[in-house]
């Protein structure tokens, strides 16, 4: 590991193995702590567990909508200690809200107290390259074609809504390309990592946040299709800054 001494990176590398993550990472540190953190992700709409395929929800622009697909990547996890030193995970996790559970295993977390977490929704530029992830069916289906820039979709949020006339239409909120990488805001946590004591962090996505804060997204006005429309992806990127919260 190169010595990036100015930044207060702890003196080890954090290797994580998760769904669709790269197991071939170099393990270039002598001692890897045998401790880990499990991040359990769940999906809600304003406090109620997400139920697929039924037009149950209202977003800030009051469009009744449903969700038929919610897939995305989480990567670049940073776990902060009180003194602002942090651990940085190299793993990329594929998440499909339709899975019964989405558990991200962050391995080799050094013992201690952690007070905040940061992460990306999407994949940082150095790995957002076609075929850089293992060719699982999920990763293949998340590919962002080479002819439009290559890499992977960061987010696929799809479903139906009723337009102003009550007509049932589809929407596809897709985010991709490096400029649109979503850096999630820092969330406070209270996690004690200790040997032989599994630590779990519950992380909840509020799907409605994609449609609000700062931009009140309106399917009828903004459009129901974001692919190749940077202005619309930018709204989702900005709204995505605070889609998650921590449940203690």
């Amino acid at each position, binding site marked *: 590991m190169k010595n990036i001494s100015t930044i207060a990176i702890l003196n080890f590398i954090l290797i994580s193995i998760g769904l669709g993550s790269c197991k071939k990472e170099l393990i270039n540190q002598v001692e890897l702590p045998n401790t880990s953190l499990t991040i359990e992700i769940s999906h809600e709409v304003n406090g109620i567990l997400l139920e697929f*395929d039924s037009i149950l929800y209202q977003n800030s622009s009051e469009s009744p909508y449903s969700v038929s697909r919610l897939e995305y990547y989480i990567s670049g996890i940073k776990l902060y200690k009180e003194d602002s030193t942090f651990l940085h995970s190299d793993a990329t996790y594929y998440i499909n809200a339709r899975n019964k559970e989405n558990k991200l295993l962050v391995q080799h977390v050094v013992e201690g107290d952690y007070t905040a977490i940061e992460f990306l929704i999407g994949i940082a530029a150095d790995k957002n390259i076609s075929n850089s992830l293992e*060719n699982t*069916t999920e990763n*293949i289906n998340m590919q962002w074609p080479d*002819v*439009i820039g290559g890499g992977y979709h960061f987010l696929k949020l799809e479903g139906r809504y009723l337009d102003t006339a009550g007509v049932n*239409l589809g929407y596809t909120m897709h985010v991709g390309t490096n400029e649109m990488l979503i850096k999630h805001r820092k969330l406070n946590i209270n996690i004690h990592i200790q040997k032989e004591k599994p630590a779990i962090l519950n992380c909840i996505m509020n799907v409605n946040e994609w449609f609000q804060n700062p931009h009140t997204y309106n399917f009828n006005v903004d459009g129901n299709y974001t*692919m190749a429309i940077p202005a619309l992806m930018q709204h989702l990127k900005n709204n995505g800054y605070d889609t998650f919260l921590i449940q203690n």
Partner: protein
Amino acid sequence: MTPSLYKTKLMACVGMLLLSISCQEETTVNPENNEPTPYSLAIPTGFPKSYLSKENPLTIEGIQLGKMLYSDPILSSNGRSCSSCHLKENSFSLPIFNSWSGTKISVPPHVNLAFRNKFNWTGSEHNLDTLAMGDFEPEFFNTKPDELYKKLSEHSVYPSLFKKAFGINKIEEVPYHQLKKTIAMALAQHIRTMISANSKFDKFKRRELSLNQMEHEGYVIFFSEKGDCFHCHSDPLFSDQEFHNTGLNISYNGSDKGLFNLTQRQEDMGKFLSPTLRNIEFTAPYMHDGRFSNLEQVIDHYNEGVSDDKHVDPLLNKRNGTRKLNLTPIQKQQLIAFLKALSDWDYIK
């Protein structure tokens, strides 16, 4: 004898018969001797992991047996073999099969099935190892068990292949269900080796040649928001292996209900498994019921024929708020030129 007592005795007899059959099975299946030769599948670059089965690992002998049986009418009493409905020149498909229940089915091709775990238009089958067991039924092979046992055990090659591949010493001692299962497993092994990855497009990706201008324009349309085909027909299998409603209907009858017929869930109405587009040039007519006789009609459908029904997949809603692609006639031709670049001519030789 009272009827119920008669029934009990009958059941006991059947039970004993089953017991004796299963005992025989153990004496004839002896995998310790003559272990078959393991075969490892060459996976083309970019392809996902194959779904290989632990219960039915690939072996040279198993594949050879499956390959012979695939095109041998020995399995049927009506002259049919698998290759009667899965014709090589059609990429191992058949234009139309008319089922006894009156449904028209465009027979899906056998291409890269090793990488899938859902089969048939509605994904009704999940296990390739047992899929072919259904083919012994009257509608397909109408197999007569006695004849099958006789022909197989008197054959010059099969007995030794069954022995080498599956440790079966005497075919005639294997219970019928077990025999069908073994045959299905051999066929599955053969089908798993049927890999197509040598189309013009594959060669283009391997930088062995370039696409001509028409094909290249079509490639861009396919993989960009212009045509937006890739979300469901994702490279390299050209199927995302998921279910979608492509807006073929405004109301649904019979087999057009698709996945709904299996799940009875409204959200599955009219959904079908995305078919591969590899070798699409060889497999007309198109869609589950073969309603489109050529690729022009398919493209016209996506361009301007997608129905207004509320079950249509969100992915078919386009930027302009409609379900139309607005392709020009030349763009349609370009898209078709690209689809034809997915033909693997070596595969059907």
